[in-house]
């Protein structure tokens, strides 16, 4: 039977292509691969190139990589990042804000995902729709709307004063609290959706088995539900933490002058100081800072899955 199939011209061509490494599977992968190559890897290399150049008053405003056939590269920009405490502080502050935002999003998102996943089918799709509904409005508009809510004479303060909970308006705008609110609000759906996808698959009979063996609901939650939803927790946390670190719009609009985040520093370096090489070095350093922990985590996860 196989001999018969192999003798058809199509089979012959396919097997020839396969020998060259061009299987159907390869072709399917090739499209996204090409996309990533053109729009991710190439720009990354360009940025990497700029980060090892010297600033120049020219167009473009940095020194070329090849001069008279030799490579002109410097690590001076990276050294500068290390020497000037502004950058270290900005990185540290970004990590801190992203971390606490992720924890908050997890604490708020987990009960929501759990509730949605345990709801009857019809209610579930309605609730999910409500979760993704904000995406129908531009992200920028929604962050602007928060200014209207949080500012000194904004909706929130007016309401709290009206019901007599406070006498003086709360100062939330242009503080880190506003940044936290903005980030948690914006990225909450990215926490909820992967968590939901995980929790909805949780087998009821496992929870019943745990109860049957004498575990109280709280114990079942920590021993069965949480460990089994770990992949969802990790995926959701990554989806919040990574973009939050480099977030620019939210701290720029809601944060104050004291809010130090690497995205803002990058903007200033690039547009105000017009120091492209340092701005590029900031970007590369941030990428490395993010990629290493993510890769370590992946490694740990794949090892955990094996045993």
């Amino acid at each position, binding site marked *: 039977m196989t001999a018969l199939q192999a003798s058809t011209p199509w089979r012959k061509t396919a097997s020839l292509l396969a020998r060259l490494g061009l299987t159907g599977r390869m072709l399917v992968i090739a499209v996204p691969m090409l996309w990533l190559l053109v729009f991710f890897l190439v720009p990354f290399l360009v940025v990497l190139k700029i980060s090892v150049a010297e600033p120049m008053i020219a167009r473009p405003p940095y020194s070329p990589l090849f001069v008279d056939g030799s490579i002109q590269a410097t690590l001076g920009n990276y050294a500068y990042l290390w020497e000037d405490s502004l950058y270290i502080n900005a990185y540290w502050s970004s990590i801190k804000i992203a971390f606490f935002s992720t924890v908050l999003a997890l604490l708020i998102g987990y009960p929501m995902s759990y509730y949605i996943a345990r709801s009857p089918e019809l209610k579930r799709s309605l609730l999910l729709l409500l979760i993704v509904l904000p995406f129908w409005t531009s992200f920028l508009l929604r962050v602007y709307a928060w200014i209207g809510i949080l500012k000194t004479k904004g909706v929130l303060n007016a309401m709290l004063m009206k019901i007599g909970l406070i006498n003086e308006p709360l100062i939330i705008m242009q503080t880190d609290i506003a940044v936290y609110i903005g980030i948690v609000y914006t990225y909450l759906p990215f926490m909820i959706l992967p968590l939901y996808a995980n929790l909805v698959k949780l*087998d009821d*009979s*496992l929870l*019943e*088995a*745990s*109860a*049957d*063996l*004498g*575990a*109280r*609901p709280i*114990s079942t939650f920590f*021993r*069965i539900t949480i*460990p*089994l939803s770990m992949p969802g927790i990790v995926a959701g946390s990554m989806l919040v933490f990574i973009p939050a670190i480099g977030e620019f719009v939210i701290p720029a609009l809601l944060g104050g002058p004291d809010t130090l985040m690497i995205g803002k520093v990058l903007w200033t370096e690039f547009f105000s100081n017009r120091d492209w090489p340092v701005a590029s070095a900031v970007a590369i350093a941030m990428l490395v800072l993010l990629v290493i922990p993510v890769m370590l985590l992946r490694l740990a996860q794949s090892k955990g899955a094996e*045993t």
Partner: protein
Amino acid sequence: MAEPSLAADAKPWKDPTAEPFIRIKNITKKFGDFTAVDDVTLDIYKGELFCLLGGSGCGKSTLLRMLAGFETPTSGSIEIDGQDVAKIAAFDRPTNMMFQSYALFPHMSVEKNVAYGLLREGVPKAEAMGRVADMLRLVKLEDFAKRKPHQLSGGQQQRVALARSLIKQPKLLLLDEPLGALDKKLREETQFELIHIQETLGVTFIVVTHDQEEAMTLSTRIGVMNEGEIVQVGEPPQIYEDPKSKYVADFIGSVNMFEGTVDVAVPDTLRIKSPEAGIDLLVEPIEGLKANQAVSIAVRPERIAVTRHKPEGVANIVEGEVDEVAYLGNLSIYRVKLASGKTVKVTKSNLLHDEEPIKWDEKVFLSWSNAAGIVLTT
């Protein structure tokens, strides 16, 4: 060794003074308009291996889940060992359950799965691990303690689930289709293993199954369920030999059903007019029948003889033509068409080879004694 008094031998249900271990009284469970369990009253005795048998959707699993505490009865009461369990949550009940899907915790090793119940009870870890090792030895899984459930075969997973549900030495073990996911050969072996374990530990088992063969092999008694009701309770031979309704006769094993009316109820034989059979059927008399009452006569396929020549001195003899023959090795199944158009199923053991086997289209005689027919009125 002191013989533990096994319910299988003592038959406490025959003793009117015996105290039942589990009393299910007028239990009803409704889901919206649908009545899953309808006014079930049932006594089960200590050390029994009781099977709840019925088709899918008959309410047997719902009844089991109410015993475990996963469902709350709409009305009625359940007593386990003299204690009303209505107010007791699942995690405090003296019962354990073996789930149909096994429900093994996928993120824990075999050992940890089995230890789970003991550790939640507050048993010190060292003692718990010792008991786990003993239990794994009982189910022959001592070499697999460190494996994760997904690294085990279906049969091994089944034994882990059994070990996990037995480790707390429950007063009552509930088993939901315990052998359903196993292939036929493994299922047969495991049936006997299950009986052996039940007899060793003396725990009361309630098994839910849709497989009548499994129920026959395992149980001390069977409760047949249909549409939320228990239609008959009895020991396996009783259920098979003396079904009380057409549903039970039909559900347990296979049966030929002849519709008819009572002709004359004389003291020593009963004659049933049956146009379907084409003759008057003779059966052993039962009480309480009126003339012209509509009844069904159930005859098991193995109680009917199929011969080429008309036999002598048998109460019921009909003629027919072989429609189909199925050879199964140890026996053959014949489908014989009667003059009325009714098809009768007959099984015949293939004991000897010297006789020329009966083939299809042959004219044959079917015969059975008057003790073979069971009169059913409902």
